């Protein structure tokens, strides 16, 4: 973080510490470039240069959260004066706990790639490479996105904590079209990778051109292969439901569980992985200044840990897991362990079932029970006798997360770092084989 912003953050913390019992100031400075591709041509290039200032203010157990993205950060002080005037009108927050005591600053290192800054000046080469690689598979047209970011983050608290860190982010995803068929792939990292761009293009094109057959589809229970894109999307919901606030508000299927309960097949483990500096969700300290650590949410099928900040931990008589959010604890990056099935053997080993390459629009009827459905997009293939029979069109997975996790039969050795519009938490995920999964499609 450069001098003026750091100085401003310190100044705000110091001045507000005179008026509030506790002050935490989080400043995030982002510089970002995003290129969107439409019908194999650039549709728009977008650039952002933003400073986001967040304040957590506490006085006599009352809690205020302020977020400002403004050209006049000093205006924050004006708003805090208004807060002081009405402080005694606000009741104490149920989610107040003292900020953690002073701790050493331990930022992540190795999460910044200088090359990203270089390519912010020459992004057209990346766009060209992605389009050429995708079209080389025989795809007819290409849509997608490449985004590059530099993110600086500083946290100062009235408990004496001060830390800052810098990382870069690289996101690429593409959808390839071949007549009525489409394929999709995505990648996210802290480091730019030309081989990843080529891989994304190659895989999207491969799925778009894998077969030209259309086959009939009857709704019912199937054994399914879920690609890392689908796994990333679905387990993002599971990870959010591990947030202790989700449990406290009734919006979690884990409300009925305690650590040690069996919630998934033994082969399945899901980790929150903030210390993995290759995944773009990486960070060294959470919003309360607690050092982050990798931790299991589910390990060998057992529910292992809720995600906590200081307040939810206090309410559940435990310690923060380094996942603050001042109000909502949240996962940073997800890591799902692989298994022993080779990717190129998945279809043969499934024998009969459906392979879902991508999905979107996951919605829940009931979070407490984990009842959800999600819709396939891009390729969904009927597998017969270990071979691709053809496209089944757009179908829907309708199940509960409990059932889905219990029915995991296998995981691929190969894992992929996925991050895109429908996988918002950067996730390292394998292909997943799930038995007896309800698939639907409208009959009218």
């Amino acid at each position, binding site marked *: 973080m450069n001098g003026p912003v750091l100085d401003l953050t310190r100044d705000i913390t110091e001045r507000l510490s005179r008026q509030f019992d506790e002050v935490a100031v989080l400043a995030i400075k982002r510089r970002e470039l995003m290129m969107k591709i439409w019908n194999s041509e650039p549709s728009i290039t977008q650039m952002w240069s933003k400073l986001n200032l967040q304040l957590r203010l506490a006085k006599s157990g009352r809690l205020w959260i302020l977020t400002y993205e403004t050209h006049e950060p000093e205006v924050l002080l004006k708003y805090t004066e208004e807060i002081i005037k009405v402080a005694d009108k606000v009741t104490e927050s149920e989610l107040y706990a003292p900020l953690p005591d002073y701790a050493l600053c331990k930022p992540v290192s190795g999460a910044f790639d200088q090359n990203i800054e270089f390519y912010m000046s020459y992004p*057209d080469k990346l766009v060209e490479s992605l389009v050429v690689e995708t079209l080389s598979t025989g795809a007819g047209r290409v849509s997608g996105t490449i985004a590059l970011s530099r993110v600086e983050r500083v946290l100062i608290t009235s408990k004496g904590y001060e830390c800052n860190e810098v990382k870069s982010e690289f996101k690429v995803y593409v959808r390839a079209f071949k007549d009525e068929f489409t394929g999709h792939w995505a990648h996210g990292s802290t480091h730019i990778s030309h081989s990843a761009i080529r891989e994304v293009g190659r895989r999207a094109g491969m799925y778009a051109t894998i077969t030209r057959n259309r086959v009939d589809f009857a709704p019912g229970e199937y054994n399914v292969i879920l690609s890392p894109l689908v796994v990333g999307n679905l387990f993002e919901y599971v990870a959010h439901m591990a947030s202790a606030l989700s449990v406290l508000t009734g919006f979690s299927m884990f409300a009925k569980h305690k650590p040690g309960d069996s919630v998934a097949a033994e082969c399945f483990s899901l980790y929150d992985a903030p210390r993995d500096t290759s995944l773009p969700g990486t960070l060294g300290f959470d919003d309360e200044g607690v050092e982050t650590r990798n931790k299991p949410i589910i390990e060998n099928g057992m529910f292992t840990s809720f995600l906590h900040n200081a307040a939810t931990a206090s309410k559940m008589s435990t310690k923060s897991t380094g996942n603050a959010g001042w*109000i909502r604890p949240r996962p940073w990056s997800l890591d799902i362990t692989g298994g022993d099935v080779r990717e190129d053997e998945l279809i043969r080993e499934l024998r009969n079932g459906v392979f879902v390459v991508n999905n979107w629009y996951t919605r829940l009827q009931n979070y407490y029970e984990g009842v959800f459905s999600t819709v396939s997009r891009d390729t969904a293939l009927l597998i017969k006798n270990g071979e691709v029979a053809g496209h089944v069109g757009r179908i829907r997975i309708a199940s509960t997360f409990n059932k889905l996790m219990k029915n995991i039969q296998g995981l691929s050795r190969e894992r992929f770092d996925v991050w895109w519009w429908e996988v918002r938490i950067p996730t390292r995920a394998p292909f997943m084989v799930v038995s007896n999964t309800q698939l639907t499609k409208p009959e009218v």
Partner: protein
Amino acid sequence: MKLQVDPTLLYRVVDRGRELGAQYVEARFQNDYRVSVTTRNNKVLAVSSSESSGIGIRVLVNGALGFAATNSTSLADLLELVEHAVSQASAMSRLRKRPIEFSEENLGNVKYSVNEKKRLTDFNVEEMIKLAMEIYNAAKSAVKEVKLPFLITDIRVHIQEKLVVTSDGAYIESRIPRLYISALLTLLHPQRGTLQRSREFGGSGGVELIEKWDPVRVISEEQVALERVLISGVEPPREKVAVVLGSEVVGLVVHESAGHPMEADRILGREASQAGESYVKPEYIGNYRIGNKYATVVDDPTLLNSYGFYLYDDEGVKARPRYLYKEGLINEPLHNRHTARVFNVKSNGASRSMDYASEPIVRMGNTYLVPGEMSFEELIEDVDLGVYVKSYMEWNIDDIRWNQRYVGLEAYMIRNGELAEPVRNPVLEFTTGWFYSNILGVDRNLEFYPGICGKGEPSQGVPVWFGGPNVKLSKMQVGVLA
């Protein structure tokens, strides 16, 4: 209305962009100020406020678009930014085979704001907390046999101010105050399990909206109904039956299967790798029939006190009602100036931006199915056996807006033309074509519901209303949850 930016700053940006060779430059100042209170049962979780303020610049250079945004209002920073935007667009233009062009329009030169009888800025935190407590106490008292372990209330004030200037003469200054209230409830019965509901209220205007919405009464009355559903809801019939959809469900259906597929940028494929494309092809416009005489869907941003209200869009074009489907015919897509040019028509003012850092893209405002004349009782009087689905929780639709699913929450059997016992979790799956071709009747009870509609990359959530009357459909198979 006192503007928080000097307009000459935006004109300097526009002039500099033109000097650098851009055919079109648009500079938009936008300030979004929000205050919210979140409660859990009878306790405050947090009081929050936020302000997002800055300038977004869009340029068209040699047929390529560039967008840049910053918090800074320093002239030097803004001039540097417009230079970057022009330079990046220019570099990308070599990869474009077909240049992007904008339609020529009669652009606005106006200032407007939404009237507030009692200003939202005077709705203080203490009053918000009091309202949240009233909602909780009323909902808790309403249920007798089930528990209400969780009620999360969110009350938000949002003041949005914009100034848009363009190199071809638009000047649009606007102020839109919005109020939003949501309640997320969990009902629990030891033997019958749980039921969850999200109930929202939203609109533009002042504090007086609360009186109109009466959220304390509406939410508590709904708990009485939901308690019945949880305790005595039956499985839907196994045979095909007539289905009547409530306004809330109809509103969502038309938003998803008329509004979205009629966004012209989606029809052209611009959102293909994110929000998807459309079953509608350009040649369908004015030629293809998707439904019967009841299938008239309008999107109208100019509805007073609506959540999706605006009078001019973010490209300076005057907003007006758009008849997306007209008596079953695919009629008029939502356009911005780019898609209008491609279709060789005039823009109908559908270009919106979530905040200063978002490019303006084609969006809905307030989308609804046109109501009829009959009462609800008349609508269902000839239904011997059917299911009435009044509200929903789970829904989704595919990426071309054809295959869709809605899972009912408050639902009832219809027997001999009257509402009967409650039904639990009826699952409806149908295609867009089936829905609009199988409307047998619509009543006169037009109701609207608020939502935040997501689209774009980075994703932009903009406030919308969706609505409709109660709608009677042909017989269909009603499913159950797996």
